[in-house]
């Protein structure tokens, strides 16, 4: 009867490997554990803390399982006690109602703190003014509008390092989820709403983002390039786009919104209030989460 | 314990009645019906929740204050309340063993229920003529579904009640028909309570 044990070892071993991978984050490709911004970094820390806390119970229990199964297996001449009617011990039961309660309390407190600290719509602390980028999930591409710069891009987003980015996210398509793993967690892209997500890149570099919620046929092509550069490079890129790219017209947007995958594109301008139009197109009742500029526009219209 | 030991397990059981394995079959069925009603409460609860979430979403279409004609609604409310009362009278007649009165009151209840349905269908037709259909707005989708589901329940109850009157004529008051009358009267009171919520949340609070 050696085999059940082999299983146990196999499992604990694979757990250990997983734990090791998670805590060291050594492998290049496990990008979630290789954060490049403050949000992703705090989220990574939370993952590690919670892994350690839960391991405090799980690992001893796994070891205990091995010991119990080994010691109390049925064989001739074993010395371990056999007590067929032993079925209750208040002391023991208090212990194992108690241990998980303590661990969960600790983890719960950490989680509550983290939930408020990392609320996606909370502005990041920074002495720099946040840059607003408006994100629209289309079938099957991402449209990025830079209201302050007046340019737009498809399937690529650039921004300066060290500056908080205020993403305003909506959809003109089925619900999607906006995700740049190395900068921080997701936010749903929902039509009729503009969701806010603050992210920031601490270093220059090229990352990628994706749509994480299934939206149909070409869903697997909804990746976008993410590039964080120096402020100067960013400004230069903006003026290049303005000089060399075509403008996005309303008609152009309607064509762009047709269901199809798309390459990277840049536009030197976009129709005034396009994002606001997209958000309010479907639902007049819950158009919350619009940026200050958009609210101004609503007021003007009224 | 001693008794257990001396006769052994398999041949232990001594029964006092010959219906020992189903002493209260009819009671058990009534109990099951209570649980069914609980599940129906949740269905209606879900529809009410949907209505409350969506009632403001008019999509530029008409709202409750323009659509609802409270006169007809109040009339049908009274009719349904009365039918609940007459179904109670039916159960009382059953307990007295008066089959004729029982069938009579059930008949009256069914008639009142049918009137309620006619009024409701009438209201729906009126709404559709006003251009307020299920596909006009989220508010109207939720309205028609909630009120219509209640109406569907009442209609099914009507068919069931007529079937029961025929069965009473055939079999008289037996434990089985007794349970069936009890169960349908439960169902009827339940629909009445649901209607009170519909009346309050949809109509009264709508036209307020």
């Amino acid at each position, binding site marked *: 009867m050696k085999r*059940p044990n082999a299983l146990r070892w196999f499992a604990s071993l694979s757990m250990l490997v997983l734990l090791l991978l998670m805590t060291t984050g050594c492998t290049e490709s496990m990008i979630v554990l290789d954060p490049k911004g403050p949000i992703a970094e705090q989220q990574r820390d939370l993952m590690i803390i919670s892994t350690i806390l839960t391991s405090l119970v799980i690992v001893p*229990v*796994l070891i205990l399982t091995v010991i119990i199964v080994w010691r109390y297996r049925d064989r001739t001449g074993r010395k371990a006690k056999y007590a067929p009617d032993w079925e209750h011990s208040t002391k023991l039961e208090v212990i*194992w109602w108690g241990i998980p309660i303590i661990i969960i309390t600790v983890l719960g407190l*950490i989680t509550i703190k983290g939930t408020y600290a990392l609320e996606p719509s909370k502005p990041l602390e920074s002495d720099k003014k946040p840059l607003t980028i408006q994100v629209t999930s289309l079938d099957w591409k991402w449209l990025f509008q830079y209201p302050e710069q007046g340019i737009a891009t498809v399937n690529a987003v650039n921004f300066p390092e060290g500056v908080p980015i205020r993403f305003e996210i909506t959809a003109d398509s089925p619900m999607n989820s906006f995700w740049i793993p190395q900068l921080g967690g997701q936010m749903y892209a929902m039509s009729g709403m503009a969701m806010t997500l603050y992210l920031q890149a601490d270093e220059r570099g090229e990352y990628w983002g994706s749509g994480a919620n299934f939206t149909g046929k070409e869903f697997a092509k909804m990746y976008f390039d993410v590039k964080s550069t120096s402020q100067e490079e960013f400004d230069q890129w903006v003026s290049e786009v303005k000089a060399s790219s075509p403008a996005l017209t309303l008609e152009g947007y309607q064509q762009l919104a047709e269901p199809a995958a798309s390459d990277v594109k840049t536009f030197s301008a976009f129709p005034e209030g396009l994002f606001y139009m997209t958000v309010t197109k479907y639902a007049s009742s819950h158009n919350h989460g619009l940026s200050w500029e958009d609210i101004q526009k609503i007021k003007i219209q009224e | 314990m001693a008794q257990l030991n001396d006769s052994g397990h398999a041949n232990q059981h*001594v*029964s006092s009645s010959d*219906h020992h394995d189903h002493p209260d079959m009819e009671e058990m069925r009534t109990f099951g019906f209570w649980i069914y009603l609980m599940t129906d409460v949740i269905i209606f609860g879900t529809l009410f929740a949907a209505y409350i979430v*969506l009632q403001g979403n008019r999509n530029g279409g008409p709202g409750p204050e323009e659509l609802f004609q409270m006169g007809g609604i109040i009339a049908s409310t009274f009719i349904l309340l009365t039918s609940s009362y007459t179904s109670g009278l039916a159960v009382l007649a059953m307990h007295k063993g008066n089959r004729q009165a029982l069938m009579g009151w059930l008949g009256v209840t069914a008639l009142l229920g049918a009137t309620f349905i006619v009024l409701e269908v009438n209201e729906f037709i009126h709404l559709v003529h006003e251009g307020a259909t299920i596909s006009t707005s989220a508010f109207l989708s939720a309205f028609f579904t909630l009120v219509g589901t209640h109406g569907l329940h009442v209609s099914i109850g009507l068919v069931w009640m007529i079937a029961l009157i025929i069965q009473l004529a055939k079999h008289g008051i037996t434990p089985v028909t007794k349970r069936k009358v009890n169960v349908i009267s439960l169902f009827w009171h339940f629909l009445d309570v649901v209607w009170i919520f519909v009346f309050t949340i949809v109509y009264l609070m709508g036209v307020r």
Partner: protein
Amino acid sequence: MWENVKSFASEFFVTGDPLIYGADISIVLTIIGIVFGLTYFKKWGWLWREWLTTVDHKKIGIMYILSAFLMLFRGGVDALLMRAQLAMPELNLLAPDHYNQIFTTHGVIMILFMAMPFMFGLFNVVVPLQIGARDVAYPFLNALSFWLFFFGAMLFNLSFVIGGSPDSGWLAYPPYSERMFNPGVGQDFYIWGIQISGIGSLMTGINFIVTILKMRAPGMKLMKMPMFPWSVLSSCIAIIFSFPILTATLALLFLDRYLGAHFFTLDGGGNPMMYINLIWMWGHPEVYIIVLPAFGIYSEIVSTFAKKKLFGYKSMVYAMMIISILSFLVWAHHFFTMGSGADVNAFFALTTMLIAIPTGVKVFNWLFTMFRGKITFETPMLWTLGFIVCFLVGGMTGVLLSVAPADFQFHNSYFLVAHFHNTIIGGVVFGYFAGLYYWWPKLFGFKLNERIGKWAFWFWNIGFYACFMPQYVLGLMGMTRRLVTYGWDKGWWEMNLVSTIGAGLMGIAFLFQVWQIVYSVKHLQKDETGDPWNGRTLEWSIPSPAPYYNFATLPQVSSQDEWWEEKQRREREPLSLAPPKLEPIHMPKNSGIPFVMSMFWFAAGFGFVFDWLWLTISGLVGVAVCMLVHSFNYDTDYYIPVEDIKRTEAAIRG
């Protein structure tokens, strides 16, 4: 005319994919084979009398389990196709449309048409025997539940060859599942397949609550009931509170699609997020509905094979009831990323973590049932041990996912995929297998071959870890779920390849199980004792397979492990030979109505799917007529005379 037929057929049947033509041919061949076999061996009458009209809970249970196995095969083939497509980057084995259909049907089938019927099958075969009852509370309703499930599942599966499969994921989030983005009939198959079988599930929930509360043998107080019926009770309570939400929600989605209502549409003021809330208010309890009975099974098995009383009985009961209630308070953890704000997320993160406490207590109690026991390692016990390890890992990652801000990174990634397979395969499937191996001798009167069973166990386990541990890593690499393919540049291919190999191992494991059954039937070694595992509860006190009335005389219960205690008593004091005093047994009569009525439901559903009003109306009228016929039928039961009982008992006890 001919042209019309041809164009109709090309719309009606799914065309253009060799895989599907292959399936078409094999389905037709199988049907022809079955029809031919039944006719040749003159078995039609037998089929009708013994199976299609039966109200015997044991036979219904067997039909449930058989269907579950067929569905496990279909869902498993789906899984293997997906894994094959993902084995390497940029493969083109499945087109995106086809892939999307396959992950949708895989999810729906595995949860609703494999796990649920497997569970109901075990409820049916075990619960009445364990509580010393002769049948369930409502045998007619029980048969109706089964046939509704069966025809619902058939309707859903029909979409594979007719009209096209649904492709919007197992929970069919709108607006993608609305007509605007999903005009085909697949989504309607989804709605009606689930709706029809869901009504059956709801009725089973009611049925078993009443059975357990009202039909226990004399002397069996609730706190003396074995643990499995307790788990069934907690699961059924969750069923009756959650399934109505599913019914209502799918009805609303159907109204959107069929009548152009605006519950979850983008336009007209609809609110898709409401669907996501509602569906998870059912969906989260649903996963506890299927795992709680597995917990009950493990409790029975651990105690039997450690030859020791279950440790901490009361704790176990409370833990299950707490889980059952908490399962209704956690739904929003499936969409922390919806932006509901920190208050909402913090609340649902906390309630989710709370579930870890009673679950942890249960694991401790199982361990301490083994502590000071005498453990043997027959296959049911092996699956239980495999479960404990697997579920510890799955439970741990579950707690990780409940940390709301961290979930922003885990959400919709392969980390999540790995987690729920970890708990559903490791918790639910392992549990049902354990239960099937454990109660198989009671069902059929012989044990399954242990040697092949151990091969199957090890293939399942090693395959499982090989398949899903890499998926945790893939999640951390940023791979999201429901991707039809991925590029070489992402660095995901090694892990995906390992995962595919693991899935293949599980496929082989399934073949071992089929072989195990065939082999065991061929080399049949009948179990004469009725108690092959030295069991502890009442089902082992009667012969295997149990006679149709279960207990010739109803047992008088005085303790939790009644049969174990009884065996001890008999050892101390040999059984007195006084023949049991028999009485006529009251039994329900067979009925064809459940089968016919479910066929009408099937027709109505099919009519709704294709918008053929004549078929819908005739189907619904048929349903109503069936109900009335049943209502007017007062001849629903009979008594078995004492002579017959004596003859049957003499025959099986030899």
